[in-house]
């Protein structure tokens, strides 16, 4: 019996091992962006926005056969316990890269050659698992912007806490747990587009963790589809009622 999971199998926030935190998804929340979305997962609060396709600038970066995709993951100074200086940290730069790669796998980039697409994510509050939540939201923002996609990307983290494999680490589990493993997944295409891990797992534990992560992603995927449906259905409603 450890300190992060009690004898009845409850986690610090009362969840069971395979349970995800409360989730809220919203599409189209920013006026200027071509597409946008908002996610709350536990206390994570994250805004994602997409601009493009648009001209490439500076021009020599133009790709003749596909879209150039840029991505910025950024945490607000007040999003964490101790104020984070606003300039991008090495961690934020790495996450920006793996997020871009996770999302690019879903985008049909050759449909708009010689253009650029910017994906911006701002973490207003961070609570463990922010990169997964960011990908989940950014994927909705891409859909909202009308970017041609092969599938939605859903992402969450699994980990090992007090010796158990658990879904969707919260802040304290992320910091004090043994393992953190974020996964991004396109359920329809059965493709993993982000996979990171740190901490020690046996090979069998790894397989169980991956399996659990994919289940979490499928759950998020359903929520993403519902959020899109709600957004466009109610929009359609309004159009009709005009």
């Amino acid at each position: 019996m450890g300190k992060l999971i009690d004898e009845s199998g409850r986690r610090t926030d009362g969840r069971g091992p395979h349970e995800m935190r409360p989730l809220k998804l919203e599409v189209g929340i920013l006026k200027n962006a071509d597409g946008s979305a908002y996610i709350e997962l536990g206390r994570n609060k994250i805004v994602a926005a997409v601009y493009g396709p648009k001209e490439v600038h500076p021009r020599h970066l133009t790709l003749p056969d596909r879209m150039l995709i840029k991505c910025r993951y950024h945490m607000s100074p007040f999003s964490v316990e101790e104020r984070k200086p606003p300039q991008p940290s090495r961690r934020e730069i790495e996450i920006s890269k793996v997020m871009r790669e996770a999302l690019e796998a879903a985008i049909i980039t050759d449909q708009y050659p010689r253009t650029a697409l910017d994906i911006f994510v701002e973490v207003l509050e961070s609570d463990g698992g922010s990169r997964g939540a960011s990908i989940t939201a950014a994927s909705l923002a891409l859909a909202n912007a009308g970017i041609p996609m092969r599938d939605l990307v859903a992402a969450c983290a699994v980990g090992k806490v007090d010796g158990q494999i658990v879904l969707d680490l919260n802040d304290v589990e992320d910091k004090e747990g043994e393992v953190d493993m974020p996964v991004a997944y396109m359920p329809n295409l059965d493709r993993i587009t982000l996979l990171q891990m740190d901490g020690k797992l046996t090979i069998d534990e790894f397989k169980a963790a991956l399996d659990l992560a994919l289940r979490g992603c499928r759950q998020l995927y359903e929520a993403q589809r519902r959020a899109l449906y709600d957004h466009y259905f109610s929009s359609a409603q309004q159009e009709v009622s005009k």
Partner: protein
Amino acid sequence: MSVSRRSFVVERLRKEKMKELLAKGQRLDGRGMTDYRPLSISTSVVSKAEGSAQVHLGNTAVIAGVKVALDRPYRDTPDRGNLIVNAEILPLASPYVELGPPDENAIELARVVDRGIRESGMVDMSKLVLRPGELVYSIFVDINVLNADGNLFDAASYAAVAALATARIPEYSLPEGSSTPTPTGNRIPLPVTGLPVSMTAAKIGDYVLYDPTEEEEAVMDTRLTMVFTEDGICALQKGGSGGWSPAEVVKLVEEAFAKAKEIREEIRRMLGIGGQAEAAQGSGT
């Protein structure tokens, strides 16, 4: 935020259209000249921040967060806490934002909000001292513009003011003789004495209009941001590459001073705090 990539033909056409309307006393969005767009303020939106507020002013959206740390005071103010205001116009806020460190627009925004708060005396910084010359509270106000649709100065100021007015910061004690501050476990409000109110107007041709949208700012000649206390004015910032006549400025300041009282009441209502006295009381140790 740069508008350099805008088409100047479109800009010119829009300016003509706008002046036509203005000549009839109309604005593109139907508002009267002195009308503000709908304002909403939600506070305590970020639980990890000591204080936070999200402001919508029409389509302009700003979030501000307050964080606190213990630090040495600045050399020239040994007996006062530190106030640090920073602003970022996030790249997701507008197609015209360039990535990179804060540019002149973000820096100006932060500094004007800072002066409005600082000079109004809104927060009594002399009460944020643990040991003069050695250890004080540093109050960080970080402002993020989430959607830029004009009048960032007022929206950012309202967000910062609301976040400060509703913040609850961890209390520390530093007993005589000790050199390590210890948290008392209490969360205390900041010593807030009143609410400064920022008011901004723009001039297009001969017309003066309040709370300009991004479209209006793109064609304006000049702009004036005024910050008011209950009793008078505490900060000014002229913007844009045109000029104001002295008569226009005096008229504007008088008019806006009156109008600021209404907005102060509106903000108070949204923050759930009463008159100035009550606010002060609410924040007394």
